[in-house]
C-alpha cells in the first residue's frame, strides 16, 4: 500500500528518468563483465598459441599423434598424455555418475530429514579438500591397498581369460590409470552430487505426489518421473564433472605413474596433459621443451572447450 502512495507522490517522469539511467549503467556493466571474460579467455588461448607455436611448427600434426616424448633429443609428441587425459576423465565419470546419482536420490527421496543435512554437508566438504591431499592419500593408502588386494590377485590368477589379463596387466604397485580415475571420481563426486541434489529438489512435489497417487513404486517414480524431469540438467552435471576431471593436476600426478608412452592397459602407468605440465615445467630449460609444454596447455584448452561445446549441442538437441 505504501509503495503505491509513494508512486503517486513522486513525479513519474523523474522515476522513469532515473530508472532509464540505472538501466543503461546496469546494461553496460553486464556487457563489460561479459566482454572482460571473453577477452581474458581470448588472451589465454592466444598466449598459449604463441608460446606453443614453435612446437606446433616443428612437429606439425605429429605433435598430436606421436607418442615420443624425449627431452634429450627434443622430440615431443603428446598422444600419450592426450589419451591418458581422455581415458581417466571418462573412466572417473563412469564411476562417479552412478554414485552421485545414488547419493542425491537417497538424500532427496529416502533419507530422514535429520540425517540428510549432515550427509549433504559431508558430501560438500569433500569438495573442499585440496587435491594434493587426495594425491597423497592415493599414493600412501589407496595404491598399496589396491596393489595387494586387487592387482595381485588378478595378475596371479590363472583362471581368468587372456583378454582380461591383458586389460589388467601392469606393475603391481597401484600407480596406474585406473587408480588415478578412482581418485578423480572421488574428487568430482561432491560437485556432481551437490548439483544433482539441487536439480532433484526443483521437481515440484505435486509431480511426485501425483505419480505416487497413481500407484507407482518409489523406483518407478525415480526412474520414470524424477530422472526424466532433470534430464537436461544432468548433461550439465556430467560436463561439470568432466571439465574438472580433465584439468585435475596434483592428485593425478601422484598416482598415475607418470610414464609418457601410450598406456597399454587399465593397470598400466600413464600420464595426463595436466600432470605432464606439472611435472616438467619447473625444470624445463630448453626453449623447445617449454614450448612443447605450453602447446600441451593449448591442447588441453581446446579439448576442454570441445567438451563444453559438445555439452551445448546436447542441451540444444534436448529441446526438440
Amino acid at each position, binding site marked *: 500500500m505504501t509503495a503505491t502512495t509513494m508512486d503517486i507522490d513522486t513525479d513519474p517522469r523523474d522515476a522513469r528518468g532515473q530508472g532509464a539511467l540505472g538501466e543503461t549503467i546496469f546494461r553496460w556493466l553486464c556487457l563489460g563483465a561479459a566482454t572482460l571474460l571473453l577477452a581474458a579467455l581470448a588472451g589465454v588461448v592466444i598466449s598459449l598459441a604463441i608460446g606453443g607455436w614453435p612446437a606446433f611448427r616443428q612437429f606439425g600434426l605429429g605433435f598430436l599423434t606421436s607418442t*615420443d*616424448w*624425449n*627431452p*634429450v*633429443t627434443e622430440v615431443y609428441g603428446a598422444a600419450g598424455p592426450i589419451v591418458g587425459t581422455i581415458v581417466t576423465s571418462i573412466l572417473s565419470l563412469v564411476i562417479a555418475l552412478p554414485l552421485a546419482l545414488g547419493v542425491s536420490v537417497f538424500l532427496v527421496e529416502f533419507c530422514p530429514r535429520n540425517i540428510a543435512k549432515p550427509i549433504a554437508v559431508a558430501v560438500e566438504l569433500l569438495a573442499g579438500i585440496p587435491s594434493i591431499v587426495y594425491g597423497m592419500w592415493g*599414493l*600412501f593408502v589407496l*595404491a*598399496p591397498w589396491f*596393489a595387494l588386494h586387487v592387482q595381485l590377485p588378478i595378475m596371479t590368477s590363472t583362471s581368468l581369460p587372456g583378454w582380461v589379463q591383458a586389460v589388467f596387466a601392469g*606393475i*603391481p*604397485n*597401484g*600407480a596406474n590409470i585406473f587408480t588415478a580415475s578412482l581418485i578423480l571420481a572421488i574428487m568430482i563426486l561432491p560437485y556432481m552430487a551437490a548439483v544433482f541434489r539441487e536439480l532433484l529438489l526443483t521437481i515440484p512435489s505435486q509431480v511426485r505426489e501425483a505419480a505416487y497417487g497413481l500407484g507407482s513404486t518409489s523406483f518407478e517414480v525415480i526412474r520414470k518421473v524424477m530422472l526424466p524431469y532433470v534430464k537436461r540438467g544432468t548433461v550439465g552435471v556430467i560436463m561439470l564433472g568432466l571439465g574438472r576431471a580433465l584439468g585435475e593436476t596434483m592428485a593425478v*600426478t*601422484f598416482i598415475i*605413474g*607418470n*610414464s*609418457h608412452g601410450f598406456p597399454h592397459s587399465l593397470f598400466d*602407468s600413464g*600420464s595426463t596433459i595436466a*600432470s605432464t605440465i*606439472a*611435472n*616438467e615445467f*619447473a*625444470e*624445463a*630449460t630448453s626453449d623447445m621443451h617449454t614450448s612443447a609444454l605450453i602447446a600441451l596447455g593449448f591442447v588441453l584448452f581446446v579439448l576442454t572447450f570441445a567438451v563444453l561445446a559438445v555439452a551445448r549441442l546436447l542441451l540444444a538437441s534436448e529441446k526438440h
Partner: protein
Amino acid sequence: MFKTFVVAAGIAGLLASAASAVDISGAGATFPAPVYSKWAETYKATTGTGLNYQAIGSGGGIKQIKAKTVDFGASDKPLKPEDLAAAGLYQFPTVVGGIVPVVNIPGITAGEIKLTGPMLAAIFYGQITKWDDPVIVKNNPGVKLPSLPITVVHRSDGSGTTFGFTSYLSMKSAGWASKVGASDSVNWPTGLGGKGNDGVAAFVKQTPGSIGYVEYAYAKQNHAAYVLVQNKNNKYPQPVAASFGAAAAGAKWAQAPGNYLLLLDQPGANSWPITSATFILVYKNQDNAAAGNQVLKFFDWAYKNGDPAAASLDYVPLPLSVKNLIRKQWIANVTSGGKPVYTGQ
C-alpha cells in the same frame, strides 16, 4: 603541505633503498633449498641481511637470472662453459649431495647387493629384467637373489637428481648415452615415475622387486635398502657423507673451465661414484656492485660457518681447498665497472 609531502616521499625513498640494499634475492634448484634457508636464517640473525630464496626448480632459476629478476640463480645442473659465456654468467658450487640407488627385494638388506655402472644402465634400460639374472648373480657371490621381476622407479618431475643419475648411466654405457641420454627429464625406456624423492621412495617401498634412485638424505632418513655401486678404483664404498666428500675432494676443479664439473665416477678408493654438486649462477659483470657483493659475502659466510648446518641436513660441505679456489675465482671473475665486487674477507 607540499614540503611535508616531499619530505615524506624522501624518507620513503630512503627506506626503500635501504631495504633493497640489505636483502638478497635468489631463485632456482629445490634440492639445496633447505640448506639455503637454514643458512639464510642464521645469516640474518648475525648480520641483519635477509635472503629471499624461491625454490622454483633449476630451469626456473636459470630463466630468472637470465631475466635479471634475481641477484643469483641456483641450478643442480651446471651450465656448459659456452652457455655461461653466451649469457655472461659465472657459476660456482655450494654443497655436494649423493644419489643412491635404493631397492625393495625381500630378504635383501642395505648394502648387500653390489652393482656396476653398466649393470645399472642395463637394469634401467630394461635389458636385465630379473633379480636372479646371471650378470647380477655373478657380481654378488653368496647373496640369495630371488627370481623376481625388476620394476624400475624413476623421477617423474624434471630434477637435478635425474640429470646426475642419467649422466652417470651415459658415462657408463654407450648404449644408454646414444639411446636415452642425460637430462633433467628423459624418455625412460621402462618403469614408472614418482613425483619427487618422496614419490620414488614411496613406490620403491610399495613394490617388491623395485629399484629407484633418491637423494642420499632420503635414503638415510627412510632407512632404505641401498645398493653399493662400483667406483673408478673398482671398490664399493658405502653411500655416506664421507664418500661424497671424497668424490668432491678428488675432483679437479681447477682444470674445469667455468666450473663445469660433474662429480661422477671420480677417482679415489672411497669416492661414491654418483655424486653431484649444486651451483650458484651470478653475472660476471654486475650492474649493481653492492648487490653482487652481498651475494658473494653471503656464500663466503656460508663456506666459513655453514658446514655444520649443511651436515645436519645431510648435505656434504665442499672441501676447504675447493672453497679457497672458488674465493679466488670470485675476485677474478665477478666484477662491476672493472673492479671486483668481492675482495676477500
